[in-house]
């Protein structure tokens, strides 16, 4: 059924279609509509799930950990400070190998208070071991939620779906809403192969000596490496069922492009419009959206970018004292295999609009600079 819905509700519908059994969440702007609709769905029986209304995001994530350890399909949603408060337990979910799915609405971190979008909240969780998938449309958001449960349960690692505050979370778009009955053949009920159960007296997560800890960490890395193939397969299978696939990355008019702009989230859509405009002017330019950030799609990124003469990465985030984070990742994917100049552009922090004009400025600068003057360029910073 097609309906015009907001991004946050696309998350809720994805959760409904996935027949989640335990939801635990705490309110934070701009995530609240996700859990408001979910609690309504739980209350009126649209979803057969327990909703635990906890007193903090830390408890939301730990309740998800407990429920997932009991073998239940589990979901939560948060934003910014909430995600940061969860940080310790994000690690716990990974170490315990629990297939929890979390939707994070990208919001800038305080102080100063900001409710508007940037990526520093999710990207500062880069190294915890969660998969991260950045969405740019409401349809993609709903579909990615459903895909994520399948991926998470196959590889026994949690998945974070990320969407821009307001630009996506509160934007209304047409979504083909999937029902649980349609999805069940693609995503059957979750059956854990190890769970907390009184018939088996396992001790989960007890003290591991230096003799065994490292192997457990190696297994997580191995699962992350293997997950690239799982993501491809799940995406393909989803395509067969529902006619929509998204890829780990999404190249746009890159075939003969001399310059490629690398983006993520909603900036990707705006960038494509700018690419079209510049192509009309005869400029050989393309765009690459990075959808899956963890595991990082090194090969896909290299395959697209290695054919270009120049690469410009737009980052709605900053790793203080280093660069934009997507820039670092893209650079490492190219390092040692090509000498294409690559420049990083910081734009749109704290929800500042990344308009076609801003993207055009970046594109023009990327093209006109023979070699990037600086690897890191702040766009639109007032004197």
């Amino acid at each position, binding site marked *: 059924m097609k309906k015009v819905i907001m991004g946050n509700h696309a998350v809720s519908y994805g959760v409904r279609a996935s027949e989640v*059994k*335990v939801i*635990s969440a705490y309110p934070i702007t701009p995530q609240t509509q996700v859990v408001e609709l979910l609690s309504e769905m739980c209350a009126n029986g649209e979803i*057969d*799930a*327990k909703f*635990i*209304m*906890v*007193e*903090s995001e*830390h*408890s*939301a994530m*730990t*309740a*998800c*950990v*407990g*429920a*997932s*350890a*009991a*073998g*239940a399909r*589990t979901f939560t949603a948060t934003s910014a400070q909430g995600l940061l408060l969860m940080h*310790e*337990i994000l690690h*716990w979910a990974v170490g315990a190998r629990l297939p929890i799915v979390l939707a994070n609405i990208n919001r800038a971190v305080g102080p100063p208070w900001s409710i508007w979008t940037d990526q520093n909240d999710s990207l500062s969780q880069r190294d915890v071991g969660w998969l991260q998938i950045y969405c740019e449309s409401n349809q993609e958001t709903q579909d990615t939620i459903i895909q994520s449960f399948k991926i998470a349960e196959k590889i026994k690692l949690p998945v974070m779906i990320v969407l821009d505050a307001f630009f996506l979370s509160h934007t209304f778009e047409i979504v083909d809403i999937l029902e649980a009955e349609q999805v069940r053949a693609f995503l059957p009920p979750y059956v854990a192969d190890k*769970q*907390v*159960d*009184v018939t*088996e*007296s*396992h*001790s*989960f*997560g*007890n*003290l*591991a*000596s230096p003799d*065994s800890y490292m192997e457990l960490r190696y297994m997580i890395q191995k699962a992350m490496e293997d997950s690239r193939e799982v993501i491809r397969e799940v995406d393909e299978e989803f395509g067969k069922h529902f006619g929509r696939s998204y890829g780990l990355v999404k190249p746009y008019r890159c075939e003969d492009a001399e310059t490629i702009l690398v983006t993520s989230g909603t900036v990707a859509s705006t960038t494509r419009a700018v690419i079209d405009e510049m192509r009309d002017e005869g400029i050989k330019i393309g765009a690459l959206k990075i959808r899956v950030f963890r595991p990082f799609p090194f090969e896909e990124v290299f395959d697209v970018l290695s054919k270009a003469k120049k690469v410009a990465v737009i980052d709605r985030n900053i790793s203080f004292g280093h660069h934009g984070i997507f820039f670092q990742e893209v650079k490492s994917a190219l390092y040692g295999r090509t000498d294409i100049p690559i420049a990083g552009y910081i734009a749109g922090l704290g929800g500042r609009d990344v308009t076609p004009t801003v993207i055009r400025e970046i594109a023009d600068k990327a093209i006109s600079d023979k070699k990037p003057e600086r690897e890191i360029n702040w766009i639109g910073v007032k004197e």
Partner: protein
Amino acid sequence: MRPAKIPTEELMTSGHLACQGCGATQAMRFALKALGPKTALVIPACCWSVIDGPFPHSSLKVPIFHTAFEAAASTASGLKAGLEMRGDTETVVMAWAGDGGTFDIGIQALSGAAERNEDMIYCCYDNEAYMNTGIQRSSATPAGAWTTTTPIKHYKKRPKKKIIDIMAAHSIPYIATASVAYPLDLIEKFKKAREIKGTRFIHVFAPCPTGWKLAPELSVSMARQAVTSKIFPLMEVTDNGRRWSVWKDFEPTPLQDYIKAQGRFRHLTDEEIEGIGRETERNWQELLMKERISLELPGLESE
């Protein structure tokens, strides 16, 4: 106190890693005898994170999910919900935390779970300091005690946090204190808790010979004297936090015997001990008043 039989079934095995005379270990053994094998434990950072034994071993015959320090009650909330959604409504979920994980870092999650009246037993085994990290003060450390962070020159002046009052304010169906020196009473309370729905909070006094500078063989004796000197009264709070009942059927013993037997109080002068005695007596009288008032409250369910 009515006598109860101690079940012969052992759900705790040898091979655990506790110190000699550990009260927390005795508490677990008795609690599991009362609860039986259909019990799943959630253990945050505390002595029991280690006592259980190293990966891949466990000294308990029930499943344990280890969790982060402040997360016992929230993890247990999720575990119970997950089990129920899987169709297992019988398993009792018990959060098993130390005093640090309960009185201090875990109190937010505990308060949240209790306010939601999550269906779990929350047991705090209280050895009155952070013993697993090497004897640092917690808000359960009693006034007068030495710890490594309250050295003799600055021993702890503030009184122990009144956790039972805090829990009673959450209107939960069952609250009790218990002591490893009174195993029959302890078992009876855990059995009673097992039959109640909602959040049940049991506060078990569990001496730590290592942290209290006490001979291991005196562990049970100290736990008994804590009760008879009225510094750790045995009680129950039922009827959603309203009905208080205090066990009084014991021969009182002098508080100074309890204090003087423990190295952690060695620095205290007689005058200081008298001060602690006065506070203890006031707390005791206050408790008895709560019991009397709760009896006079109209409209209470009879027990």
